[in-house]
């Protein structure tokens, strides 16, 4: 643990301390509570910027790792760290929190103290879930996120806030319960194979489960994450949650919370169950593309501006999922970039809708029209967010969408669905279908913009709307500035991510090349069929009680399996050194450096 890793811990601790501090502020002291909240969240952002200093983009693995034993009897650790993927998502979180606190300055007038504290707690949970390197710790943060968001929607939300908040929580819980069961299963299996019971992610990824078990485990994880993304058809909680949430809630929900779905696939589901991921990949790609088109179509017919933007999230996150399973560096970077850009542009759109809502207390498009004449500065800011979201080159959205489409287009056929006629280029079809999202994005966003901003200023109640105040400009300015920065200078962002992504791909491919068989560690041959016939039969269901059954066997069968004569493996130097892009050849890539042997 380097001193720098305490920096990461500070990012987690600061908002927590702030939240506790605010609880001691007297109820009436609203300005003080707001001030502390803004100050603490700004400080957190500055500290999180400090992470970029010691963070070395050339290193692909997790860095600034802070590891302390947490619950010894369970083998869980308080282990956190960042890599090239999570570092930007942490930044996004710490960036958006002060923005929303500032934006809610006027919008929230009752229970200010609680509002600020809840937002800070939410920040803790979100950052925690991004940096957790222990499955159990991740699960704790993952569930912890629900509570502040539930309260945000339920306490400061709109008319149907109770319905929306409960729908949000139950939807998410359903998914995460299966994930919890699977975590237990994994925990037990790893313990059975190695004799060490732990939830450390790095260790668990060395376990190779039977392929059939991987499929089921992947499905369980995928459900949890797919709901969070949200992937079509698990998305219907999103429009309700967005419409009812206060602006601050919507911005955080769209800006950060949705990213956990994609991040979860990237960090947990795919590395832990590579075979399951490979089986599911074509379907995820197809559903992703379906989501792009579906989200765009449904967004187009909304009258509520917020609902429109909510459905547009379904469309954008479809790009993320597509890019993730295309498994080319370009597509995955595009996926990550789309997440960042979506956080900013959609965050910006929700802020803009918040500005309108504060003035008019409605979000129906039919109520607006011709606002540009009345609010020119606001219109310009709004337009930039719209264009960023529609993927105009030079703004942030383009880079992500372009890289995703591009990376999918040039990807090999490794994710063809079974029985697909090989002469029809599947990746190219996917990319083509995804590219229609470029057209559709312009269709619904500009339609909305025209309805709200253009046309005659006919509604009497819109004729005296004030333009944005300096405070509101201060809210928008950093967002818009970043939309430009990400669009014009993506390279610094991509460079930090690049090595991690390369490693992600090569790791994934080498894991995928592992031999099928009873649970064993990577790089080792699976144990004899007979020795583990019992658990082969059971491997289908992820069951917590498997632990009991495996325990005695684990004692007599330590880390190395019996008859451990590595089967005639080539020496490591002789292994091919280039990761081949197309079909997942059983060639472990150099950076992955799995122990030699164990080649099928």
């Amino acid at each position, binding site marked *: 643990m380097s001193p720098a890793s305490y920096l990461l811990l500070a990012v987690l601790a600061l908002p927590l301390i702030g939240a506790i501090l605010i609880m001691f502020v007297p109820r009436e002291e609203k300005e003080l509570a707001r001030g502390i909240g803004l100050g603490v969240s700004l400080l957190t952002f500055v500290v999180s910027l400090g992470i970029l200093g010691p963070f070395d983009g050339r290193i692909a693995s997790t860095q600034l790792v802070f590891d302390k034993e947490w619950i010894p009897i369970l083998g869980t650790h308080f282990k956190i760290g960042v890599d090239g993927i999570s570092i930007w998502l942490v930044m996004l979180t710490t960036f958006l929190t002060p923005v929303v606190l500032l934006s809610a300055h006027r919008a929230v007038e009752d229970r200010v103290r609680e509002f600020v504290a809840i937002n800070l707690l939410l920040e803790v949970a979100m950052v925690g879930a991004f940096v957790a390197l222990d499955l159990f710790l991740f699960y704790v943060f993952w569930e912890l996120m629900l509570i502040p968001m539930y309260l945000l929607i339920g306490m400061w939300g709109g008319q149907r806030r109770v319905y929306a908040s409960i*729908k949000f929580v*139950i*939807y998410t819980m359903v998914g995460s319960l299966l994930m919890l069961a699977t975590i237990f299963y994994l925990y037990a299996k790893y313990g059975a194979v190695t004799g060490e019971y732990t939830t450390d992610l790095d260790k668990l990824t060395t376990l190779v489960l039977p392929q059939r078990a991987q499929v089921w485990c992947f499905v369980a994880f995928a459900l949890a994450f797919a709901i969070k993304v949200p992937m079509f*058809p698990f*998305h*219907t*909680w999103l429009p309700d949650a967005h419409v009812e949430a206060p602006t601050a809630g919507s911005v955080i929900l769209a800006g950060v919370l949705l990213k956990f779905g994609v991040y979860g696939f990237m960090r947990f589901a795919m590395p832990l169950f590579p075979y399951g991921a490979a089986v599911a990949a074509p379907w995820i790609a197809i559903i992703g593309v379906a989501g792009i088109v*579906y989200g765009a*179509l*449904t967004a*187009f*017919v*909304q009258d509520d501006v917020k609902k429109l933007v909510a459905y547009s999230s379904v469309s954008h996150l479809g790009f993320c999922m597509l890019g993730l399973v295309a498994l*080319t*560096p*370009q597509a995955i*970077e595009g996926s990550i970039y789309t997440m960042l850009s979506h956080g900013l542009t959609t965050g910006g759109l929700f802020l803009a809708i918040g500005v309108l809502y504060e003035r008019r207390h409605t979000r129906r498009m039919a109520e607006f029209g*011709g606002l*540009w*004449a009345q609010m*020119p500065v606001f219109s*310009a800011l709004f337009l930039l967010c719209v*264009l960023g979201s529609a993927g*105009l*080159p*030079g703004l942030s959205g*383009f*880079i992500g969408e*372009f*890289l995703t*489409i*591009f990376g999918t*287009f*040039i990807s090999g056929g490794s994710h063809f669905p079974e029985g697909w006629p090989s002469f029809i*280029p599947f990746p*190219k079809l996917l*990319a*083509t279908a995804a*590219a*229609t999202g*470029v*057209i559709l994005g*312009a*269709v619904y966003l*500009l*339609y909305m913009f*025209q309805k709200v*901003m*253009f*046309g*005659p*200023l006919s509604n009497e109640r819109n004729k005296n709307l004030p333009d944005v105040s300096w405070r509101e400009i201060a809210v928008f300015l950093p967002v818009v500035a970043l939309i430009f920065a990400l669009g*014009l*200078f*993506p*390279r610094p962002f*991509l*460079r930090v991510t*690049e090595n991690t992504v*390369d490693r992600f791909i090569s790791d994934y491919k080498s894991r995928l090349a592992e031999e099928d068989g009873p649970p064993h560690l990577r790089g080792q041959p699976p144990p004899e069929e007979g020795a583990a016939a019992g658990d082969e039969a059971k491997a289908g269901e992820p069951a917590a009680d498997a632990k009991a059954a495996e325990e005695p066997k684990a004692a007599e069968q330590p880390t190395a399996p019996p008859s451990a004569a590595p089967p005639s493996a080539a020496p490591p130097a002789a292994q091919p050194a280039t990761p081949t892009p197309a079909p997942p050849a059983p060639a472990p890539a150099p950076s992955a450096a799995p122990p030699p042997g164990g080649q099928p």
Partner: protein
Amino acid sequence: MKQATLLWIPALPLIGAAFNLLFGRFLSRRTVHLVAVAAVAASFFYAAYLVGGPLWEAFKAWRGQKTEVMDGLYQHVYTWIEVGSFKVDLAFRMDTLSALMVLVVTFVGSLIHIYSTGYMSEEPRYAAYFGYLNLFTGAMLILVLGNNLPVMFIGWEGVGLCSYLLIGFWFTEEAFAYAGRKAFIVNRIGDFGFLLGICLLFYATGTLDIYSPNADHPSLMSESSVAAYRETFFGGERLALFAGILLFIGACGKSAQIPLYVWLPDAMAGPTPVSALIHAATMVTAGVYMVARMSFLYAHSTTAMAIVAGVGALTALMAAIMAFAQTDLKRVLAYSTVSQLGFMFVGVGVGAYTAGIFHLMTHAFFKAGLFLAAGSVMHAMSGSGDITKMGGLKKYLPQTHICFLIYCLAIAGIVPFAGFFSKDEILIGAFGTEAQGWFPMYGKVLWILLSLAALGTAFYMFRLYYLVFSGENRSDPETRGHIHESPLSMTGPLIVLAIGTLVVGFLGLPHLTFVQKYVPNFLAEWLEPSLVDFGRPSLEGSIHQAHASDVGLLTLMGIALGIGVVGILLASALYSKGPSSVVARFTAGAGAEIYRLAKNKFYVDELYDKIIVRPFRWIALGVFEVIDRFLIDWVLVEGSAFVVDLFGRITRWFQNGQVQRYMVGLVLGGALILFFATRPDADFDWQQVDTLTVQFEADVGKGPGSNGAEVSFDFDDDGTADFTATWKKGDPPVVTTWSFSRPGEHDVSMTLKDAVFKKTGTVEKTVVVEEASGHGEAAAVEKAATTDESARTPVGAGGAQ
């Protein structure tokens, strides 16, 4: 390769745009337009300096050897995107082609900026207007100078955005805002193709740079890339075909070709100088420029080029017909633009790239002029553009009139105005085209289509001219009283453009031997290093032109000129004194149908509305209401919640706090437990031990019988017990044997009577007895086991009775 800070060329207008958009609203109009005009003009002068200095040197050097690709000027600003092997540099390159475009864009752009200071002087959003105009110029320059396709794409979409903003500039009119949106979306449909074209090219070649300063790094022009274009990609066709078509879809959107031309006529909603700059002189030519820029790709697919030329020719003719019946000054010009762009595409599509670019350039002059003159006319006519209300403006607007006449003569193709030379080159190119693999008369068909379009052009342009400037004035007296010539800021650019229209044609004199001997075709030589083969061996299998003799060329030129004259004479006969009665009779009688079709633009907008726009909305609405609201959210989500809820309601009924109801549950539950707990579950096993002898073993089960029971067997199915035994807890199981009289199936039943409740339960099984057989026990046991399975019957209530 020569380094040059090319960045300044697009950056100057962009800085001007940023300045005016951010601070313009606080500044005076004078400052705003000074900054805007200065930005574009500075860009022009800087570009002119670069072209005249370093680029000219490079050009001269290239002409000396003519072997390699000409380097031109190059600037690598920074690396924009880099992921793995995919690298996009923000790099600019100026070769002879892009230099020509830059000069046209900045020169015409400067004039239009100046013109706007007069035309837009009453506009309240003055700074925004000039900001957008600058932004547009900057984006166009990025498009032109970009050295790779993604950077071109920045400009490509950037001009689309500015077009959106400027068409919808007077957004308080719903229709104008709609026109802006329509333009952006139709352009986006094209961009979709362009984007996929980019992907396909990288997939095939591994690079997106048009030119690479580094010999080790391939570019799209390298031999390796060219080899990739020629490879079979799909369905036996070359990759160049697919890449070419995808990029051409982009060009169709930007340059308003069939089927994506529909946005351009509507784009006339914007201020007139915008129409001149964006929708005539520059942005719409981007597609033509792109095809010429990518000539090294198109050259490798005859089919792709044939499609480009074919679409161009059809568009040229169709738009010309539509222009016949329009009554709005700007709309006539808009369709004429679409038509002329079609000419340019035929030029680049038949491999006469120089001709296409030449026409692009001359068109930029006379079409910008036409629009600006139209603006001047509308300025005079209190903003109205209805040509049926004009006429006789000759005497009110003398300067505008002369300029307009020059432009009209140019577009009609009358010697020596610029349009004559450029249009003629395209026609000659089309006539001499031989496309391998296509029908032999391909080039001739193109030529006929274009000639008809040219005839139409001459006719509708002079119809316009006569309706506006000659005859009697048909406007109402009030408007007539206000007619005045425009200020110098507006007529000045008109005169400059008119002079340009007279001059630029001479840059590309016809390829007649006696002409070329004295004045070579400068443009062809200038563009040579930027087009197609760059001095490499000429390309096999593609489109090429047959070399015609001087006599042949002169004949073709004569025909073209004749067509122009015929068109003008026809228009003069029908319209020189206002619309003649012949026209009225024709449009009411024989030609009513045709007139109606042309006037309504062949109902293409209505068709698109019917087959695309409306169905799209219906589908979207259907998807939302049926799939999203009903199926997913109502049936699945609310449905599962309802099931849980229902279960909760049912169980809640038991938990309502009434002691009586709890008691009912208690009693019913107790009875159920008692019933199941006291049910004896008797069973027995059997095994043949000898000939006809079977051993039976009673199993008292786990029910009450396990505490002691009376077991009786009935072996012969006669209803009476044949064997009875009493079993107590702790005893070994009851075992007995029975010898059957014959082999075969026997029904055996066992009855169990427990010692506690005295309840009986009976189990009945079919026992298969085999004759003593040598192969003995094992088989018998196996058989027995299976029979046992099938014969097991639940003891059930029957036994308990």
